[in-house]
């Protein structure tokens, strides 16, 4: 029982970590201005863009799930 809970939790954790890596990848590409990078901090456009990017990705994800449910009937 405990082992099963542990396995479920760990695999959920792994999936969350994978999503975070993939979202960072996608949103970094979208939000960080092209060209050489001068400062390590996120600037005033980049920071909200990164946060919006996560939220809009989740919104879009939700749109997909809703549509899939419609298709299933």
């Amino acid at each position, binding site marked *: 029982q405990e082992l099963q809970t542990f396995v479920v939790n760990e695999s959920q954790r792994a999936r969350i970590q994978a999503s975070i890596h993939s979202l960072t990848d996608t949103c970094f590409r979208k939000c960080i201005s092209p060209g050489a990078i001068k400062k390590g901090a996120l600037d005033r456009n980049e920071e909200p863009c990164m946060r919006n990017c996560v939220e809009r*990705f989740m919104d*879009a994800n939700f*749109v997909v799930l809703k*549509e899939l449910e419609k298709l299933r009937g």
Partner: protein
Amino acid sequence: QIQQEANMQNARILVEKLNEHCFERCVPKPGSSLSKGEETCFTACMEKYMTAWNTVSKQYVARIQKESQQAGLGGSTGL
């Protein structure tokens, strides 16, 4: 049961890829909410991606079947 899990896995990858492609396409600059236009684009893109996946599946399976018939029974598929 293993087969069922394989199907789930397959569907999960399809949804992941679709999200990736359609987010890339339909939300070039993420704002403070999903605009109506972005949502419309997303729904259309989703349908298009699934249709594309279906087209590829059929074409691909038909091709490897044709090839394995030409190669005789039990022929390899070249992939």
